[in-house]
């Protein structure tokens, strides 16, 4: 029987992953609804129980990142869980979370008074397996604290999302992935007035055991949609590792 080339490649890839210590995800890959960006993750599954870093320098970028995170939580994480949102100030407007299929009353907002307390709260929250996700805004993400967060989630399988408010700080971090979300002009059918569905440029700048890439995505009717199927892989020379 002829084994196709792609089968062999995917088998070899899985072997490499298991040799590299990446565990098989517990939930099996769901129907990816044509979301080709999932192919870039190890085993083709969105990594839960990991820390994702989002670079957002401006308030606009923060808003779109929050929206995108909302979408990720409702699409890839268990339903009906409690989410902790840790930030110094109240920035997110609860009603808007409905757009991303999150029940806003299941989000607990925590406002520590200083950056040090933010770290403490994040670590405590990530060590509790009764919540599904922790979203935080922080300024000084460094290798030490990101590594601590990553170690915490590896035990509890909570997923952490960190909005890094200092995008110029691109030092090594222990996070599983690094994203950058920017807004794109929305699409509308010809001649229609008004503003369309949220549309973003999603850059996956770093992913452990996966492939980086960028896509144009929209949030339509409570789910992600790719607007362009073909994705461009960042050339090899820009990669730092792997």
């Amino acid at each position: 029987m002829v084994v196709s080339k792609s089968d062999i490649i995917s088998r070899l890839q899985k072997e490499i992953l298991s040799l590299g210590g990446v565990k098989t995800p517990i939930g099996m890959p769901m129907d990816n609804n044509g979301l080709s960006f999932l192919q870039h993750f190890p085993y083709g599954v969105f990594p839960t129980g990991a820390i994702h870093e989002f670079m957002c320098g401006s308030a606009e970028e923060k808003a779109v990142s929050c929206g995108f995170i909302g979408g990720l939580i409702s699409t890839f994480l268990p339903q009906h869980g409690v989410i902790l949102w840790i930030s110094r100030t109240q920035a997110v407007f609860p009603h808007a979370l409905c757009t991303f299929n999150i029940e806003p009353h299941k989000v607990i907002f925590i406002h520590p008074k200083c950056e040090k307390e933010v770290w403490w709260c994040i670590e405590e929250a990530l060590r509790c397996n009764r919540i599904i996700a922790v979203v935080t805004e922080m300024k000084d993400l460094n290798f030490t604290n990101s590594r601590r967060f990553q170690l915490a989630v590896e035990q509890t399988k909570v997923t952490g999302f960190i909005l890094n408010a200092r995008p110029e700080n691109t030092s090594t971090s222990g996070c599983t992935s690094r994203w950058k979300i920017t807004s794109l002009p929305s699409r509308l059918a010809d001649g229609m007035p008004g503003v369309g569905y949220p549309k973003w440029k999603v850059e996956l700048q770093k992913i452990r055991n996966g492939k980086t890439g960028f896509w144009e995505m929209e949030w339509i009717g409570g789910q992600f949609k790719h607007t362009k199927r073909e994705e461009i892989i960042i050339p090899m020379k820009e990669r730092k590792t792997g």
Partner: protein
Amino acid sequence: MCKRFVVIWFPYLKTDWYAKRETELSDLPFVLYASIHNRMVVTAANKMAESKGISTAMVLADAKAIIPSLQVKEDPPGFFEKKILAFSQWFIRYSPIVSIASFDNIIIDASGCAHLWGSEENYLNDIVKRMRELGYTIRISMADTIGTAWAMTHYGEPLSIIGSGQQAQALAHLPPASLRIEPEVTERLHKLGLHCIYDFMKMPSAVLRRRFGNDFIRQLQYALGYVEEYIKPIEPVPVFHKRLQCMEPISTAIGIEIALQNVLETICVQLKTQGKGLRTAIFKAYRLDGKVEKIDIMVNRPSNDETHLFKLFALKINTIEPSLGIELFTLDALKVEETNSEQEQLWNGVGELTDYGLAQLIDKLSNKIGEQNIVRFLPDEHYLPERSIKKADDLHEHPSAKWNLTKPRPVCMLQPPEPIQVTAPIPDYPPMLFRYKNKVHKIVKADGPERIEQEWWINQGRHRDYYFVEDEQGCRYWLFRSGHYDGGKQDRWFLHGYCA
């Protein structure tokens, strides 16, 4: 567990007491009087006198005019107030929690007591029978709330049992006076044609509050069981207090931890046996030099979990300064509540708001950063975006209204809105461009306007016309113009949020 309350009313307490001692009085019309403002006023009348039309607060001379052969006795001041205390102690055989509402009303918390008599009916019948043997007429009823039981005792059948959760049906046809409200309020209700509780039971509380005051609303909520009413038991509730004297002064963190563990263990055992849990506790360390070091904790739901409470205290142990040494430790449970039964926790799905593990995490965080810094929001039925959310009181509160899904709302909201400079072509059209923080954003696409009025019953002010706009880069914003267009004379445009 569902609570059950019994309210007992002695309509003829004073006259019954005399009739018991002087048997001939029981067959004669008989009243007690007292001198109030130099007038002889009837303070109590027995059944016979009452049936002839004599009532309390009547002048004694008038009463005598109605029945010339009326028996009279002076009412000894303060005597029956003491008597009712003795009576209420007698009722402790029916439940450990007994309270005095007034000199002729007794409230019994009968939760979990009635089954010892077979049924609730037997329980009440037993009370009635024994009181009759003692020579007292009583009216009695049992319900889930004190308010309903009180209303049924005074305005219902002489003996009534209201099933669990049936307060609303029971109260529906009773007069408003049965809610223990002030006579002026009752009068006003009747004037407005609200002759029974059913007439106003379903009215929004904001409307009722404005006209009849807070007390009225509270009594209604007490009666319907929306708000829990507390009683003051005649026997004090046990105090949860533990002291630990040290032979040698303690000055190390380990020593303090051992002391804390020791006192906490005793208190937790004590709490567990009584089915209670603490909400707030304070741990004090008395130093040799006379100063007292304190650390306190609070928890979201009553807890008697030793390890959890210890963890909360442990976060603060390093704030205790032992100085020369500590000679005495005390632990007080300041606020103690009933714990939910253990069984309930088994049903809790992981990841729900009722989860015990989540409550423990929140306790830990709130003890570190302060309770006020942890918030959860529920929708509120207001139009203005900043008023459309309210803070939830606790982890269990569920939204009473629906979350708004129909209109676009910004993910990140600016509070307060930031003023911006705008060029708008024609009135009521979205602006062509706006300038915010010295950056010009050219608007390409726009939705709107969505007009949101100030709610006149809360405050006066200009309405807002909201536009959902997108600039050249594709960034989406939520802008509004405050008030009507006035030819750009004043800057009244604001940026209110960033959209995803």
